[in-house]
């Protein structure tokens, strides 16, 4: 990672203001965003809908210009053809040419990306095989399902074997099997030394595969860092599940718990720490006839962290 002289993506204090409507109303899409993505990383760019994720990606792809600040890809301005030759991009909800076949479209993508003619056909076939699209290779894309279009989008992004892959909401439109396959592809890309920058709001995928994340809310970057740094391994609470509880015992257990949920003959207790677990166990021993069926420590998840930030931003605004 450190052998590469400069970050693959470098965003410094980028702000973006759009003007919309007849009165040219000012819409602040991004405010003072800074981040760096190093070679070989999987970087997850998180945020709720409308947070500004796609705007930043468009800036990185040279589709729009920042109002202030600078964005560099491989140390060059995003519109530089030399920078674009080294990346593959999948936009959100991709749509392609209705009357082209999958093979023709991937051939075009390879040609535009500078893949030599002698290699293009092999690359196209390889991508079709990787994305399990061989049977639809010579079918016009107008009949493709949302999931098939998403696969085509990924295939065209990877066909030139780029060093950097930028994916905007890549899991959209994929079923659970497709998502699993897609995660495998991303992990495989990292193993081959590629850099991946992807935006999403599906947090479980991020937790599984990302090295670092950036969280953007209302156009502002609220956190950038390694998941292990953001999510501490401190136990936040412990869930104790007990069976055979009577009314009097239940009241005693509820007194030492933060939360108690009765479901059938089971009682799910949420307690703060190990001392409270000991108290619960003592009550169970004392009362008799109660069986402890589970003790699960609960560490904060990315979702908890993310939701806390969203709630905080909501309160602030």
């Amino acid at each position, binding site marked *: 990672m450190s052998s590469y002289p400069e970050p693959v993506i470098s965003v410094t204090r980028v702000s973006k203001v759009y003007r919309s409507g007849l009165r040219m109303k000012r819409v602040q899409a991004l405010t003072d965003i800074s981040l760096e993505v190093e070679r070989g990383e999987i970087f997850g760019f998180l945020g709720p809908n409308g947070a500004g994720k796609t705007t930043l990606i468009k800036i990185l792809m040279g589709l729009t210009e920042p109002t202030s600040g600078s964005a560099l890809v491989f140390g060059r301005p995003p519109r530089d053809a030399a920078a674009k030759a080294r*990346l593959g991009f999948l936009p959100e909800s991709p*749509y392609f*040419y209705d009357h082209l076949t999958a093979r*023709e479209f991937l051939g*075009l993508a390879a040609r*535009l990306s500078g893949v030599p003619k002698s290699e293009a056909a092999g690359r196209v076939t390889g991508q079709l095989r990787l994305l399990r699209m061989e049977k639809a290779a010579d079918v016009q894309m107008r009949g493709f399902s949302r999931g098939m279009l998403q696969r085509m989008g990924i295939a*065209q992004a990877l066909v030139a074997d780029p060093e950097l892959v930028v994916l905007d909401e890549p899991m959209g439109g994929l079923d659970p099997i497709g998502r699993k396959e897609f995660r495998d592809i991303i992990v495989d890309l990292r193993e081959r030394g590629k850099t991946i920058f992807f935006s999403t709001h599906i947090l479980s995928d991020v937790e599984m595969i990302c090295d670092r994340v950036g969280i953007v809310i209302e156009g502002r970057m609220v956190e950038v860092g390694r998941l292990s740094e953001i999510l501490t391994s401190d136990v936040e609470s412990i869930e104790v599940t007990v069976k055979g509880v009577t009314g009097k015992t239940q009241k005693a257990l509820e007194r030492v718990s933060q939360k108690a949920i009765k479901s059938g003959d089971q009682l799910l207790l949420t307690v703060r720490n190990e001392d409270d677990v000991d108290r619960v166990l003592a009550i169970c021993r004392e009362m008799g006839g109660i069986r402890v069926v589970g003790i699960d420590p609960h560490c904060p998840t990315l979702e908890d962290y993310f939701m806390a930030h969203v709630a905080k931003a909501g309160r602030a605004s």
Partner: protein
Amino acid sequence: MIERVSGIALNTFRESIRDKVLVTLIVFAVLVMGSARVIQPLALGEEAKIVKDLGLSAITLFCVLISILVGGRIVYREVEKRTIYIMLAKPVRRWEFILGKYLGLMSVLVVSLVVMTAAFYLILLILGVGAPLSLLLAVLMTLFELAILTAVAVLFSTFSTPITGAVFTFAVYFAGHLSRDLKLLAAMSPSPVVKAASYLFYYLLPNLGNFNIRPEVVYGVPLDPSALLLSGLYSLVYTATLLLISAAICNRKEF
């Protein structure tokens, strides 16, 4: 550069040639040319001229329709469907994208012209009214005219919706055929404002009347080769200018 431009042109050609709108327009053009058989008895000895004039006019009209209807949405549709995100994220310069789209559409028009002209000659042979090769000169001049008109359509497509673009392109087409009248109006008008405006539009709008040599070829009037060559050159320069403006607009555009 050539690889990228030709790739985009080939893609545009494939997309357009498989579009039902194009096939429908070509079929209609052939039907209109074939309808000459019906009006032939009414021509009172001028059958050959009427059939040729109708055929050449149908070729021009339907190719103009293809140019405006397909050309008017050629860039807009890429933006609307966001396929332009994928194209411009590749190492493609924006002017290459515009040039590729334009050349793709011109290839479609050349193929349409060839198909319609072949059908036209077939009809002439079936009707037995003579099929002189000089008629091809009128088709060639139509191609020069289409080159300009398609560049106008592409220009409007870079910043307006397909309907607005089509209306504006039609307006340029009609005004372009009236440009000699504009010059006349400028010369005759006593008002300096009308004079200035007429001259402005005369020099700004393409002089499409130059490309209409249908009456000459149908009636066998001799043509001046240097005038034809000049028209071809005029088409090339005007088209290149329009494409440069389109590329400049696309270059400044934010997606």
